[in-house]
């Protein structure tokens, strides 16, 4: 996998505003924040997408999300927020190293803007069975 800016941050070769670090995970402020407090949570394991990440790294990220969310919201003075994790350039992924965004949604409207067009689920039973079988 080609080296990304996040590998350099993990290696300490590029500085960051570090918020949290353990054996598997690093969290730091996004330098292009969508809102005040926008934080990135990344695995130290170098993988481009979540589908490629080990169960251990994924569990380590999951485990620290509640604590980080509480701390980010307390510091940002905010109670609503979105967690976003993009996989693949067509899905808006820009740095090809897995990262979770924690994005406060402030009263002034700053934060993640999403467009949500609900559709219908016509083939639910067959689709669920196909996905369960593929696990």
């Amino acid at each position: 996998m080609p080296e990304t800016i996040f590998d350099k941050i993990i290696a300490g070769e590029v500085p960051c505003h570090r918020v949290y670090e353990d054996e598997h995970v690093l969290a730091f402020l996004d330098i292009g924040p969508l809102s005040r407090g926008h934080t990135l949570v990344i695995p130290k394991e170098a993988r481009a997408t979540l589908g490629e990440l080990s169960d251990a790294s994924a569990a380590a990220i999951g485990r620290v999300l509640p604590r980080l969310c509480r701390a980010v919201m307390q510091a940002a003075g905010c109670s609503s927020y979105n967690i976003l994790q993009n996989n693949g350039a067509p899905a808006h992924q820009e740095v090809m190293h897995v990262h979770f965004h924690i994005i406060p949604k402030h009263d002034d409207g700053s934060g993640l803007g999403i467009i949500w067009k609900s559709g219908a689920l016509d083939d639910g039973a067959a689709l669920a069975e196909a996905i369960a079988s593929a696990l």
Partner: protein
Amino acid sequence: MQREQVDPEYAATIFARIARGEAPCYKVYEDAHVIAFLDTGAIAPGHTLVVPKEHAVTMSELSDASAAALGRVLPRLCRAIARVTGCPDCNIVQNNGRAASQTVMHVHFHIIPKPSETTGLQITPSVRWFDDAEGVELARRMRGSLKP
């Protein structure tokens, strides 16, 4: 049913009942802590919800154990959904609070395949850059707020 029309209290009850096996769903996965099923208001084919059996409204309220169990199963689910839909790209979204578009008041991750620009999650970005001093101060306050 349109997502906007879902009454949050009703929906929370439905999620809890699904997690307890008392209400039907298009189930994809289940273990001791987690259940995953298809979103009936899918915004893309394969749109799946991953829900902890523990009841918590937001991620901030969830136990570390449930959060770890959710995290652990996401890669497997992403791979299975990609294989079945034929779409390698996807967005993971988890909304907390009404202002952040949460409509069902029980923690849930969305896994949403992104087959085209106009299908799946659409993001309207607006970036605000901060200066170095602001970043130093904000990171310091967050480190100070990190309690187990």
